[in-house]
């Protein structure tokens, strides 16, 4: 009997693309610290539980005759089996706690554990969003204090705290713009201009809010083409969505000129603030004439990404857009108490709000983490964050541009991320091969094939929490891999060789989607 039929088998690279299996595969597929783990559906049982629940008192059921009679099909595991299952799975993940995670535009920095401890304080973690407002004044104080910091750091008028992620924040900003246009009766503006270097969420957001999207090209040096933008402005344009610092890792030098031109043409400026960590404490977006910008609290102010979420995306607003901010929000009363503006008081306090965009007040768990991080750094430390993240990125850029093509290297210093292209690799070698080879070197790869304006893009963001030593290691590894890719080393093409899995077949996954587990016996019977 084999317990783990599809399991991991330790393999080792040798010369060429030949990869030989290590002598003597094991009975379980496990070897020393390299452990395979079946699915809970393959090992658990519907009769097993890892919790002890007190008996239910005997009462007549009042479920309206809708008792669930059929099996649900949820296997259980005892507590030790559960802990072991997830601990084993965790060991198949790369994470920032294990090493450098240079994903450009994703900002993977150290996650201080004080933030986690604070977020779990019962006064934050164990309070209900609909408790009477005077029983949660401390929670609203967190919102208020964080809002104050964000407004001062951005020099903006007002802030909407409820958006639940960066893209949700974009939606909030775009809805503010649409509300402002409607309020002034300017409903013929149906176009939102989006530079081609923008995050994919920008055009998706504009479309989701009912706008049409038109692209604006980038200049050869990687910035928005100001002349092209100006030429497209007109009475049908609602506004522009722009990322600054942009996804080429560059500061948009013409940002103020762009804002002025858009305003002169009657539109509004949305700024994607995903990369705020590059300029926090050194540049205040409010000084650049923008009308709305979301701040990814999880990026700039360090909430752990948790495998892809949750995030949090408060939106700072200019005076022009402030009246349209969503419900609910917190205001301070004359007596110092904090008050929650909801539907009932909206008429008097905030008549032009576009409404509610999520059930409750936003991502409180992220607010406590972000505020903790901000207080830890202070105004001086946040500025140092921007400086060190920019210094680290430029150090990467200048240490690698002799082995990898850096399309915007000559454009001057980069901000918090450095971009390279696949130009100069040997015939048939790609960015993907470099990324997968980095895995064998013990690093998480950089962002690949983004932004689209650079062919075979490799976008590297080291962040400010990397030491010079860890940067030097990464630079050494990437120089070596780049050298092999230029020399046509075929072993790269089958990398990774040492990860828990070899390259995975994504085409098959999309062509014949298997999105839930099916019992093999039943699945076979069904076919």
């Amino acid at each position, binding site marked *: 009997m084999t317990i783990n039929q*599809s399991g991991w088998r330790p393999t080792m690279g040798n010369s060429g693309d030949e990869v030989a299996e290590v002598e003597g595969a094991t009975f379980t597929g496990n070897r020393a610290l390299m452990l395979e783990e079946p699915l*809970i559906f393959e090992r658990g049982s519907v*009769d097993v*539980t890892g919790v002890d629940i007190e008996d*239910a008192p005997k009462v007549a059921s*009042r*479920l*309206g005759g809708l008792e*669930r009679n059929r099996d*649900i*099909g949820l296997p*259980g595991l005892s507590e030790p089996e559960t802990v072991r299952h*997830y601990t084993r*799975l965790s060991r198949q993940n790369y994470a920032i706690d294990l090493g450098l995670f240079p*994903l450009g535009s994703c900002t*993977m920095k*150290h*996650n201080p554990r004080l933030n986690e401890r604070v977020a779990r304080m*019962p006064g934050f*973690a*164990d*309070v*209900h969003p*609909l408790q009477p407002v005077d*029983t949660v004044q*401390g929670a609203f104080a967190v919102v208020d204090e964080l809002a104050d910091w964000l407004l001062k750091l951005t020099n903006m008028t007002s802030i909407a705290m409820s958006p*639940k*992620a960066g*893209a949700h924040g974009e939606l909030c900003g775009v*809805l503010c713009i649409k509300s402002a246009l409607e309020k002034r009766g300017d409903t013929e503006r149906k176009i939102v201009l989006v530079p081609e270097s923008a995050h*994919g969420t920008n*055009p998706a957001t504009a*479309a989701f809010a009912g706008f049409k999207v038109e692209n604006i090209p980038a200049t050869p040096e990687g910035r928005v083409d100001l002349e092209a933008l100006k030429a497209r402005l007109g009475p049908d344009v609602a506004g522009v969505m722009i990322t600054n610092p942009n996804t080429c890792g560059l500061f948009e*030098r013409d*940002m103020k000129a762009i804002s002025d031109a858009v305003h002169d043409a009657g539109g509004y400026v949305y700024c994607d603030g995903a990369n705020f960590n590059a300029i926090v404490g050194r540049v*205040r977006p409010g000084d650049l004439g923008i009308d709305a910008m979301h701040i990814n609290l999880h990026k700039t102010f360090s909430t752990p990404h*948790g*495998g892809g*979420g*949750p995030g949090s995306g408060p939106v700072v607003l200019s005076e022009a857009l402030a009246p349209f901010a969503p419900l609910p929000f917190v205001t301070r009363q004359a007596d110092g108490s904090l008050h929650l503006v909801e539907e009932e008081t909206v008429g008097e306090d905030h008549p032009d709000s*576009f*409404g*509610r965009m999520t059930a*409750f*007040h*936003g*991502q409180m768990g992220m607010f406590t983490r972000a505020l*903790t991080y901000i207080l830890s750094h202070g*105004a001086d*430390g946040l500025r140092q964050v921007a400086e*060190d993240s920019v*210094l680290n990125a*430029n150090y990467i850029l200048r240490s690698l541009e002799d082995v990898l093509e850096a399309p915007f290297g000559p454009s001057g*210093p980069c901000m918090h991320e450095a971009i390279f292209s696949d130009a100069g690799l040997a015939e048939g070698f790609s960015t993907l091969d470099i990324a997968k080879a980095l895995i064998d070197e013990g690093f998480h790869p950089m962002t690949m094939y983004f932004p689209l304006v650079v062919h075979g893009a490799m976008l590297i963001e080291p962040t400010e929490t990397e030491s*010079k030593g860890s940067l030097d290691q990464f630079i050494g590894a990437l120089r070596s891999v780049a050298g092999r890719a230029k020399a046509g080393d075929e072993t790269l093409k089958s990398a990774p060789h040492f990860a828990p*899995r070899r*390259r*995975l077949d*994504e085409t098959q996954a999309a062509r014949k989607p298997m*999105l839930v587990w099916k019992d093999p016996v039943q699945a076979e019977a069904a076919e």
Partner: protein
Amino acid sequence: MRYLPLTDADRGEMLARVGAATIDDLFVDVPEHARFDGPIPNLPLHASEMAVERHMGRLSRQNLSAGDAPFFLGCGAYRHHVPASVDHIIQRGEFLTAYTPYQPEIAQGTLQMMFEFQTQVARLLGCDLANASMYDGSTACWEAITMARRVTRRAKAILSSGLHPHYVSVANTMAKFTGDVLETGLPELTAEPDTASLIDRIDDDTSCVVVQYPDILGRVSDLSELAAACHAKKALLVAVVTEPVALGALKAPGEMGADIVVGEGQALGVGLQFGGPYCGLFACSEKLVRQMPGRLTGETVDAEGKRGFVLTLSTREQHIRREKATSNICTSSVLCALAMSVHMTLLGEKGLRQLAARNHARACQTADRLAKVPGVEVVNDSFFNEFTVKLSKEARPVVRDLADKGVLAGVSLGRLWPDAEALANGLVIAVTETVTDEDIEALTSGLEEALA
């Protein structure tokens, strides 16, 4: 600065390598007018771990936390006991500090967990498949309405009056901008949900009917007839579940014919957290998968034929389709999904059924006890762990008064519908396994006093 590893000597060496004299030389692209020099005024400087913890602790203690009071609030956020090992697992750095699994070879832990989560959720909700989570229940609900519009090419959605008013609010907000037409209404304080009236209103322009199960007043009703009525007009039935523990006792919406089932997973593993982060659930039938928003994990094989998992069907998503994407959602609540998945694994079918049975029985006991209080009338015939009472006076000030006595009594309908006089005396009471006999006594005597 404890989180910043560079020393001044490092900075000097690195600037030399970069070819810059000072750090300002790296900010040359920032025009003069946009520069900000020196720390921002009126903001404090950096602080020690101890000082920050003390400050945040002080703010935390200004709140009355659920564990410190008899607690009966629900309406979309529920207090259940979360086993200690759930938090232990989500705090493992390899889960906590990983990114979206863009490199599947070194992200199998997260990917396998997401695949398991999708399977657990699909089974719990009674659907073919589920995605890897959304922001929360309210945004998942709106995404379901837009998905129904894409599938049916119709723009009119009928929302049950039993749907959480904040979910309705979110949908109304969005519909103002997208051109969707929503029909909504106020619930009545009666034992009967509005199923008959929903069926009457379905027509050839209807994209979907959205119904909550159990509904905002805690009532449950068979959705089969409603599903059949929707399907007869080629409309979809969207069911919203805000309390997933209920499905340990109640028939699943998918089993009764719902085409899309969305919900809030918070009750399992996530905790109250003052409203967020939560875990939006999204499940549907197999034939609708390519119209589904959000992230999906699929099974595949690696170059050696071993089973592995990858993010898949991403051609629906914003990073590929840009303005043609099914949604602008670019993430999922993976860590919350992990918490929910671990909790479901610990419970298993047996534990979930026991938990649900205990919730229901305790709620029945509480309802019976409250029914004896003068001035209290229990509205529901049917319910799971949450029911509505009609008080002899306005509920909102009563809740306020009970909070002064240290009892968090429930959610007044006046908080949810400030302008609806007919609902002002309604109070929704949630009773989970965390509620003790003493808690029930405190609530009862508090209400007796307030209504005397």
